């Protein structure tokens, strides 16, 4: 079977796996088809910072294992991810390869070990296509903060892809890989997924090991999949999750029993909507209309919709940014130009630090370090960090209370669809305000997923003044701690409602 660009559009992990097993195409042919798409589209979209030179070798190895298993009649023992081509965000380490976090600071940094998530995917036979562009050190929501150029939206190259995992979302949404990994501190998987028409999962804090991912705000960061379908996201989540002794925030708890996971006629999925949070203004009409229509479809499909009171969500953005600035200023202190990364010469050690950090860290990173240094200063600690820690607990309790009544909390993912490149670049506060719906989930540590409710046009279209019909829209669904399974159950219902 010839793998045309058209064929790639319809491919999912499961259908690709079945085709590999039947011998419709080989892992090498699949990898070649994606490489051809990347060659065609990447010069304009800039989703990949690097396409690995050994992709075909990796695919050959997968083909060899598949052939061997077939010879022994053991195809069923092969993992569903064998030979599946994936893209990896540039802040996740793969031993022996450059990992730069899209920063000049780590321009030539070669990873000395692999992230746990990479070890897991590699053991399953995944083919790593390359590393994807992002906002530098994951700080941003548009992938305009990369030191290596902006990434463009696969539906409309005049628009941003969202961020910070914009390269991964563009690669999946633009059919330049079958699935990807991203990281999410305040929406960096879900918001670019919404902008690019992909499914993006921020798993429960602690369910996926962060060993080997560059820390931005450690109490919030989580790794997760960006995929074409809910099922694909679930397959990758199942492959990467689990306790890891190298990440002390990963949890080691018994599995949720299967009996607790069933929903249906007898037990409807109850969806809570925090109405007062949605009525604060500043949300595009198109986004709200699509959200309401989706809820109506879900009600028809047998879900129950009700209003939930979550009064402290109003404070989540301020709380989030204080926490992020604080943790960023601490985490970025490790870049000293001595142990690894870039180094610039000054007249003494202090000037070495000042020059290296002043020139090799980008503008947004510098701004966040400055803000973090301010809010953590003596005299301001109680007013900012301490207050934020307390309000964070109140936000967490709002979720706990909501989940006494409902199985899911739903909102839009972002106040608008993908917006034009450059719209917010000179106004950092406006850029932060775009994160309003995604940050509370990280503050509480609960799992959240962006599921497309409108896919947008399948062809690349250029900015049409005032018209956003060609751009995707998504709903954000949020589940209780460790109940990522409910996201998959409801996510599949949302997909079937869309069809």
């Amino acid at each position, binding site marked *: 079977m010839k793998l045309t660009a058209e064929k790639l559009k319809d491919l999912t992990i499961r259908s690709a796996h079945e085709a590999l097993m039947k011998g419709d195409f080989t892992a090498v042919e699949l990898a070649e088809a994606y490489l051809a798409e990347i060659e065609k589209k990447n010069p304009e979209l800039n989703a990949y910072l690097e396409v690995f030179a050994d992709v075909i070798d990796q695919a050959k190895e997968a083909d060899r294992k598949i052939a061997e298993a077939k010879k022994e009649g053991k195809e069923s023992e092969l993992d569903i991810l064998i030979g599946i081509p994936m893209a990896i965000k540039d802040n996740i380490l793969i031993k022996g390869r450059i990992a730069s976090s899209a920063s000049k600071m780590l321009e030539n940094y070669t990873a000395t070990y692999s992230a746990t998530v990479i070890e897991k995917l590699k053991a399953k036979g995944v083919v790593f296509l390359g590393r994807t562009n992002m906002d530098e050190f994951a700080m941003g929501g548009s992938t305009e903060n990369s030191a290596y150029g902006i990434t463009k939206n696969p539906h409309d190259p005049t628009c941003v892809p969202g961020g910070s995992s914009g390269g991964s979302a563009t690669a999946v949404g633009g059919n330049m890989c079958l699935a990807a990994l991203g990281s999410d501190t305040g929406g960096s998987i879900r918001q670019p997924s919404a902008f690019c028409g992909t499914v993006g999962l921020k798993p429960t804090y602690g369910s996926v090991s962060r060993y080997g991912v560059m820390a931005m705000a450690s109490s919030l960061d989580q790794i997760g999949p960006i995929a074409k379908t809910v099922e694909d996201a679930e397959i990758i989540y199942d492959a990467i999750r689990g306790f890891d002794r190298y990440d002390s925030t990963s949890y080691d708890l018994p599995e949720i029993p299967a009996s607790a996971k069933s929903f249906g006629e007898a037990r409807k999925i109850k969806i809570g909507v925090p109405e007062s949070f949605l009525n604060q203004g500043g949300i595009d009409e198109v986004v709200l209309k699509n959200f309401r229509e989706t809820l109506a479809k879900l009600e028809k499909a047998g879900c129950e919709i009700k209003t939930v009171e979550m009064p402290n969500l109003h404070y989540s953005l301020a709380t989030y940014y204080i926490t992020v600035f604080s943790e960023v200023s601490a985490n970025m202190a490790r870049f000293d130009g*001595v142990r690894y990364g870039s180094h610039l010469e000054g007249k003494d050690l202090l000037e070495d630090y000042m020059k290296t950090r002043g020139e090799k860290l980008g503008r947004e990173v510098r701004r966040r370090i*400055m803000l973090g240094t301010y809010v953590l200063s003596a005299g301001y600690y109680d007013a900012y960090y301490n207050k934020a820690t307390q309000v964070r*607990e109140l936000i967490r309790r709002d979720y706990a209370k909501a989940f006494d009544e409902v199985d899911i909390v739903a909102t839009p993912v972002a106040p608008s669809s993908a917006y034009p490149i450059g719209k917010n670049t000179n106004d950092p506060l406006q850029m932060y305000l775009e994160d309003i719906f995604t940050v509370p989930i990280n503050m509480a540590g609960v799992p959240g997923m962006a599921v497309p409710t409108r896919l947008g046009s399948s062809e690349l279209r250029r900015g049409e003044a005032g018209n956003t019909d060609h751009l995707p829209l998504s709903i954000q669904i949020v589940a209780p701690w460790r109940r990522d399974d409910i996201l998959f159950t409801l996510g599949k219902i949302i997909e079937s409602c869309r069809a």
Partner: protein
Amino acid sequence: MLERKDIDNLANLARIALSEEEKDKLQKDMESILGYIGELQKAPSFAEASEGKPGNHYLRNVMREDVEPFEAGANTESILSQAPKRRGDYFVVKKILDN
């Protein structure tokens, strides 16, 4: 109000050399961002909103036995290979004490 000397001081504390032009822009941006996050002071106090229930009960310390260390020197070469400047098995830094 953020003054220029505050920006200078913060930049020194953060070990970041900034141009004068960037300091101007930062002073403005930080004003508006701090104004926004200052809204948090309007949030209810924890004591009144928590109804006396203790906070952060889900946080706990994670410890492990101090056993199974990495073999001494096993990672030295790969780690030092990333150093901007090295001499033997050491990182090179400028001297910090005057004669």
